[in-house]
């Protein structure tokens, strides 16, 4: 079994899983908040914020990676502050890979959730309000359960994107074995050398199996939570 991918392959697989899970776990709640803001909020600059969220989709990944480097590198505006204030280092760390993956997937997460929010019947939220529920309670007991299929869809899109993200990740945190060399980075490296195709194929399959497993899981969950 361990020979199937070799130690480097396994390390890339575990790392990809860790990075993608974290990227998903962090971006889903933020995505819900952002989707709510965009769907319900009425404030100046809403269009701009919407655009900003979509930007990683539009820009070539390398550019996004470079922007991340400029912002969150150790010499970057936010990176230095994060390190001094919270001791959080992103550059060349798996955390940075998770950040890159999360940001690249964020537009997908937000969109899926926003579509679900737009489909919620406001009458149900009205009913909850007349029953004395606070906004927070309405959100957690009515809105959130109703948008769960959308949240799940967003999560699986974010996870899949994180599993496949390459350009922004390698530009921002480079490719350090065991730290930031995710499956796509490993595959990219292998593809640059003649004759390593079999390893590429194995990693591709591993990646596909993991992501499609997540997809299957999300579909199953969605069926379970689907509004009756």
């Amino acid at each position, binding site marked *: 079994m361990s020979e199937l991918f070799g130690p480097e392959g396994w390390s890339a697989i575990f790392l990809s899983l860790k990075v993608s899970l974290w990227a998903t776990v962090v971006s889903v709640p933020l995505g819900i908040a952002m989707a709510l803001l965009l769907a319900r909020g009425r404030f100046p600059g809403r269009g701009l914020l919407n655009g900003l969220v979509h930007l990683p989709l539009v820009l070539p990944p390398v550019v996004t990676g470079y922007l991340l480097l400029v912002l969150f590198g150790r010499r970057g505006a936010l990176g230095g502050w994060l390190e001094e204030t919270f001791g959080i280092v992103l550059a060349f760390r798996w955390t940075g890979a998770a950040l890159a993956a999360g940001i690249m997937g964020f537009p997908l997460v937000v969109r899926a959730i926003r579509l679900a929010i737009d489909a919620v019947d406001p*009458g149900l939220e*009205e009913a909850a*309000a007349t029953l*004395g529920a*606070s906004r927070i309670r309405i959100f957690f007991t009515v809105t959130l359960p109703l948008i769960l299929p959308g949240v799940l869809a967003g999560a699986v899109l974010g996870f899949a994107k994180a599993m496949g993200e390459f350009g922004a990740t390698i530009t921002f945190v480079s490719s350090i074995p065991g730290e930031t060399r995710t499956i796509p980075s490993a595959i990219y490296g292998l593809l640059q050398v003649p004759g390593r195709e079999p390893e590429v194929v194995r990693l591709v399959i591993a990646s596909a199996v993991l992501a499609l497993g997540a997809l299957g899981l999300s579909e199953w969950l969605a069926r379970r939570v689907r*509004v*009756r």
Partner: protein
Amino acid sequence: MIEIDFTRTLGDFTLSPTFTAPAGVTALFGPSGAGKTSVARAVAGLLKPDTGRITVGGRELFGPSINLPARKRRVGYVFQDARLFPHMAVLANLRYGGTRDEADVIEMLGLRPLLDRYPADLSGGERQRVALGRALMSGAELLILDEPLSALDAPRKAEILPWLERLRDVARVPILYISHDVSEVARLATTMVLMENGRVTRAGPTMEVLGDPDAVPLVGVRDAGALLFATVLAYDEADGLTTLTIDAGQLILPGRLGAPGDRVRLRVPAQDVILALERPQGLSALNILPVTITALTTGRGPGVAVGLAAGRDRLLARVTRRSADAMKLTQGQELFAVLKATAIATYDIGT
């Protein structure tokens, strides 16, 4: 005490209701599209008036400097469409706003077998019962019921109405009640507000509005009738009849309508009152009252609305013009009103 005076435009429809109603049940009555639901939404905080004021029990819910959010208005609202939470089972729906009188409400509405079901698996009437239960259990300080019984069969209605009466009289929860069914309204409503085209055309005590010959066209010919207050004298166990006194004499009605001394109110549909020049004999109708004609109103149709005074009580009768002519009915004439006991059946009796 409900005080409403506001305006709000909805597209090219202008809603500008003005009325004041004392504690008890206030019925909003009027044709489809009159603006009843919109008034209810404004009271519940779901529709913001452009200007005006809404006060319930002294609490200002909306005014020039206040607009209490819906969740703070403590209004239990049964929507015209049930609006159950589709992702919660019936029990969770019921408990969402509170659990006041849980067991009683579940019993009264016959919800016990439905508790584990999801709304999608309920019939139309079942849904409406759950929505009603949810509002009743919320411990609201004002109930708004928008056609809560329209999807229900008569026996089920008959079970629910006494409960609403108890809320009105015992728990003293003010109720805003929207319905197309005059017998429901007559039974429950302290105040009747007639609406048309966004405005209030008539508002006042239910007895006055329903007993007013002039209101007959507004209420609908078949739905006109008078309200009487009566006091229970005795209940006859053997034949199941209750004897009551009203100002003009005695009435005998089927069913146990209360303990001796209780005050009850009765709706006497105008079409169920027969007029007789002489006291009739050998009739199955048990109630014959001497009355004096106070008003004769001839409408467009073949009917004549006859206002009657029975002591200090007022009655309304509807007879054909031919009968009115044949009997030479005139204002001030003294004659007899025959009320059929079963036409004033339990369904129309409110305590």
